[in-house]
C-alpha cells in the first residue's frame, strides 16, 4: 500500500452565517448575501485544492463539545436536520454526510494506544453539530468526500490551555501517524474562529454588513499577530503564545482545533496561505491553508 499523505491543512471557521449567506438548497432560511470577504476566501481555498486529489477530510469541530475525552463519529452515514441552537434563524440545514469509519477507527485506536480517552460515537440518532456541517459545506459543498469528524475535548475547561494543548498535540501526532499508515490522501481541517468575542445583539437584517466589525481593537491586534505567524511559517510561536492568545482574545482555539491542526502538520515551518479574513458578529475569522503537498521534504 502506498504511503498515506496529508495534502493540506486548513483553518476553516464555521459561523453558520457563511452557509446562510450562500443560500444553498440544504439550508431553510434565505439571505441577501453578506460576509463576502470570507465566502470569497472559501472560494479561493476550494480553487487552491481543486486539482489536488485526496480521499477524505479529517475535521475537528469545537461545537461537538465532549467532556469525557475525544469522540469520533463512528457510523458510515449521518442524515438529519441541523438547527443551530444559538442562531436558529440562520441555520436549519438538511445534511447527509458520509464518514470514513475505517480511518476514524484507525485514529481512534492510535489515540487509545497513546493513552488518550477516546470513544467511537455509534448512535444513529446523533445530530452532527452545526460547526462541522458549516465547515464541511463551505469547504466541499458537493459533500463528495467522506469525513472523519472529531469532537472537541474540553480539557481546557477542566485544566488549562497548556494541558489542552499537550493533549491536542498528542492527538495531532497520532492523527498524522494514522493517516500516513492508512495509505490515504487527506485534508485536515480545524474548524474555529480566532478572536471570539461576539456582539450580543443582532441587527434586524443579520447580513447588514454596515454593522459588521471586530468587537475591539485588542481583538484585531491579536488576530493580525496570529495571521502574521501563519503567513511566515511560525507555527511554533503560535503554540507558544496559545495560552495568552486563547485567554486574551477569548479565542475559539480553546477547543483545541488549531493546536491539533498544527501538530498534524508536524508544526510547519513553511508559510500558510491566507485565503481570507473577516469578522462575523464581531468575532475574527481567518481561512488559511498550509499546502503540505508542496513541502513533503520539510517533514520527512
Amino acid at each position, binding site marked *: 500500500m502506498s504511503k498515506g499523505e496529508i495534502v493540506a491543512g486548513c483553518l476553516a471557521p464555521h459561523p453558520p452565517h457563511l452557509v446562510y449567506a450562500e443560500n444553498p438548497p440544504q439550508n431553510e432560511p434565505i439571505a441577501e448575501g453578506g460576509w463576502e470577504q470570507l465566502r470569497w476566501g472559501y472560494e479561493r481555498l476550494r480553487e487552491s485544492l481543486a486539482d489536488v486529489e485526496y480521499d477524505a477530510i479529517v475535521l475537528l469541530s469545537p461545537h461537538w463539545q465532549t467532556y469525557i475525552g475525544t469522540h469520533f463519529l463512528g457510523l458510515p452515514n449521518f442524515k438529519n436536520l441541523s438547527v443551530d441552537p444559538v442562531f436558529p434563524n440562520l441555520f436549519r440545514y438538511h445534511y447527509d454526510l458520509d464518514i470514513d469509519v475505517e480511518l476514524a477507527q484507525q485514529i481512534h485506536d492510535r489515540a487509545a494506544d497513546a493513552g488518550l480517552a477516546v470513544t467511537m460515537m455509534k*448512535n444513529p*440518532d446523533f*445530530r452532527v453539530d452545526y460547526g462541522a456541517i458549516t465547515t464541511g459545506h463551505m469547504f466541499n459543498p458537493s459533500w463528495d468526500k467522506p469525513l472523519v469528524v472529531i469532537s472537541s475535548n474540553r480539557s481546557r475547561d477542566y485544566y488549562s490551555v497548556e494541558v489542552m494543548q499537550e493533549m491536542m498535540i498528542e492527538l495531532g501526532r497520532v492523527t498524522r501517524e494514522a493517516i500516513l499508515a492508512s495509505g490515504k490522501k487527506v485534508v485536515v481541517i480545524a474548524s474555529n474562529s480566532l478572536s471570539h468575542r461576539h*456582539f450580543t445583539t443582532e441587527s434586524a437584517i443579520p447580513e447588514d454588513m454596515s454593522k459588521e466589525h471586530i468587537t475591539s481593537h485588542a481583538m484585531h491586534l491579536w488576530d493580525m499577530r496570529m495571521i502574521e505567524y501563519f503567513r511566515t511559517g511560525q507555527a511554533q510561536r503560535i503554540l507558544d503564545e496559545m495560552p495568552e492568545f486563547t485567554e486574551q482574545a477569548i479565542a475559539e482555539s480553546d477547543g483545541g482545533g488549531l493546536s491539533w491542526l498544527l501538530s498534524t502538520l508536524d508544526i510547519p515551518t513553511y508559510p500558510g496561505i491566507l485565503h481570507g479574513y473577516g469578522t462575523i*458578529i464581531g468575532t475574527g475569522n481567518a481561512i488559511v491553508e498550509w499546502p503540505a503537498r508542496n513541502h513533503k521534504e520539510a517533514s520527512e
Partner: protein
Amino acid sequence: MSDGELIGSYIVPVHPHTVLAPEQNEGWGRLRAAYDAAAQRIKESEADLLIIYSTTWPSIIGHQIIADPNPEWVMVDHDFHELGSIPYSFNIDEKFAHAWNEANEKRGLKSRTVAYHGFPIDVGSVVALKLLNPDNAIPAVIVSSNVYANRAETTVLAKACMDVVKATGRKAIAITAMSLSNRMFTKPIEPKDDRIHSLKDDEWNRKILELLGEGRLEDVGQLSRTIHRQIRVNKVVAFKPMWWLSGMNSNRNNLTGEVLAYEALHGAGGAVVHLDPTPSGTGDIEYDEDDVEYFAGERNVLDGDQFETQDIESLKVEVPLGKPQKNGPALWEPTESKDSVNSEAAPKPVGAYPHARRVGDLLYLSGVGPRQPGTNAIPGGPIHDGDGKPLNYDIKAQTQAVVDNITRILEEAGGTINDVLDVTSFLVDMDRDFQGYNEVWAETLGQVGPTRTTLAIRALPTPIAVEMKVIAKAPKTE
C-alpha cells in the same frame, strides 16, 4: 382573574442517566425516584405552567425562549450517546413565551422566541420535562442561559417572567435544570464506580444543599460567583441559575426547602430540591447585592439608542404606556431673570418660574418634585394614570428623587445639599406616605439638619406624591 403567583420551585439534574439508565446505579435510581416524587407533587398541585431555565442551552444574542407549541425530535447527548436516545414531544405555552419575550424587552433585555421545526431542545430541558411532566399535562416554557449575562440581567429576566405570571393569573412552577458541582470524570467509568468527583466538590454541594434545605435561596444566589470558582468547570455557562431562581422567588431567604436526593452523575453533583414559597421562619434576608428592576447594561454594540431605560411604570405588563406629557400639565422652560438659578439637570417647571432665586445670602427654591430631568419620568411611579385612575407608587423612591433634584439645583448654583436651611414638605397622602417619606428624610436631609414643616395637601400639579419647598444658604459669590 386572581393574581398569578409562583407556587413552587425545583432544582433538577441535567444528565440523561435518570431517564435512560436509572437501573444501572443505585444513586441514579434514587435521583430518578426523587424526580418521580417531584412529578407527583407537581401533579397534585394546582400548577398550570412549568418554567424551565436550562444551563445546558447557552445563547449569545440575549435570552431565547422556546415558542414552538409542540417541539418534537430525538435527543442524543454529546457525551452520553451510548446510553441511548430520548425521543421527545412537548406541550409548550406559546402565548406565555411571546408575552415573556415582550416583558423582557420592556425591562431592557435582549430576547427572542424560537419556533423552528427540528430545533434541538437541550439535554437538561428534555430530561426535566420528560420526568417532571411525563404526560405533558401542564404546558411549559423553556429559556436559555445567556453566556454573557451577569446577575443583573439574569435577575431582570426572572422579574420579567413574573410580570407575565402575575398579569396572566398563572400558578407557575420554576425549574432550574443544572448540576451543582459540574466536574465530571474525564474518562469513561463503570456505572458502579460513580461518585462525586472530589471530596471538596462533595463538601461544597452539601453546603449548598444545607442552605437550600433551610430555604435560603437568596444566600445561595449571592454565593453564585464563589460557588462557580470553587466547584464549577468553566463550561460555557457560569453558575447563574440561582440568580434566576431567586429572582423568581422575590429574592427570598425564608422559603421552605427540601432536598429530595443528592447523587453523583459521572462525577458531577446532581440534586432534586423542592422549594416551597411557604415562609419557613428561618433565614432572615441579608440583602447585599443590588435589586435590579430593568437592565441597562452593555448590550448596545450595534446601535447606541437601542435599549433606552424606561420608567418603572411602563414595565407593568398590559398597562398601556401613558404618554408622560398627557399625565399632568404642560412643561415650561424655567424663567430667566436677575438672580435666577436654573439647571438643565433639574426637571422642567410646570409654570412661569425659575428653579431658584438668590436674595442676599439666601437661595429660595421653587417647589421641587421627583420628576426626572430629561425623561420627565417619576421614580417610584406616578400616583395615577392619564385618566386619573390611581396607581400603586413608591413614596420612598419619589422622596429620594426629590432630594436628588434639590441636590442638582444647589450644585448648579455652586453649593451643596449641606446648605439647606429650611424645608416645607407637601404630601398628598399623609396616612399612606408619611412613614416612607420620613425614612428617606432621616437618611438624607435629616443628616444635614434643616428645620422642617410637613403638610398634607389635596393634590400637586403633576401625578406625584411629594414636593419640597427649600430655603438654602446661597454660595459665596466672587
